[in-house]
């Protein structure tokens, strides 16, 4: 929860929003990348930027269902992806090819939804399946791309 508006560390005066895309390429727990990415996303979202996420390569495992970290003694942060909608992050692009290359389908991913405030707060899916070529276009539209 950010308190930028009340603390001394307020951001610079309002500028036009920038489009940020966070690209996630690694499995969730073997390295710290996935968790670090998620934390930076939450911070960026608090500064009211236009934030979306992309999952490709082994990054698609970050959204897989039924994660259980009890055996490795790490915090299971998978449920936090479901809170992203509350932070205004409503687009999680998942690359189709990355899923199928790993024998996964969208059924293997957890459901992530957001409440659409322009449509009576109806719950809508956040996960957008997208093929490699279309994802390249999405990337081309961004102001900032951060790769984890």
């Amino acid at each position, binding site marked *: *929860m950010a308190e930028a*508006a009340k603390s001394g560390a307020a951001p610079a005066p309002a500028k036009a929003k920038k489009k940020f895309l966070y690209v996630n390429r690694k499995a969730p727990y073997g390295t710290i990348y996935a968790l670090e990415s998620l934390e930076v996303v939450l*911070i960026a979202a608090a500064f009211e930027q236009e934030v979306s996420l992309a999952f490709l390569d082994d990054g698609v495992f970050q959204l897989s269902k039924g994660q259980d970290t009890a055996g490795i003694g790490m915090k299971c942060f998978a449920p*936090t992806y*479901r*809170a992203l909608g*509350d932070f205004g992050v409503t687009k999680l692009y998942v690359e189709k090819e990355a899923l199928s290359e790993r024998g996964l389908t969208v059924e293997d991913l957890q459901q992530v939804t957001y409440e659409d405030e322009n449509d009576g707060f109806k719950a809508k899916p956040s996960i957008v399946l997208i093929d490699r070529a279309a994802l390249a276009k999405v990337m081309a539209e961004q102001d900032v791309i951060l790769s984890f």
Partner: protein
Amino acid sequence: MAYQYNGHTIEHDEEGYLTDISLWSPELALEIAKGENIEMTEERWEVVNFLRSYYDEYQVAPAIRVLTKALAKSMGPAKGNNDYLYELFPYGPAKQACKIAGLPKPTGCV
């Protein structure tokens, strides 16, 4: 550094956040609140309990607007705003309410 109450010793970091968040209890919340000069009224428990259930579900503290929306729903629109939250927790809902609720220090909170 540790909180001590009723013979329990519960460690915390230099800012007062619990080292092991699983050790939280309502009694401990009262002890932490005392250190913040906060009296735990029903309204403050409402916030603390909401923070805990949200964290339990999502493993992250809620965005401020989620918190204010939940308060508006449960306590009426007059209380679903930032001003009300700062009235309850003068040093900020993140800094004080999360600490009392036994949550980790929220991400991105300076």
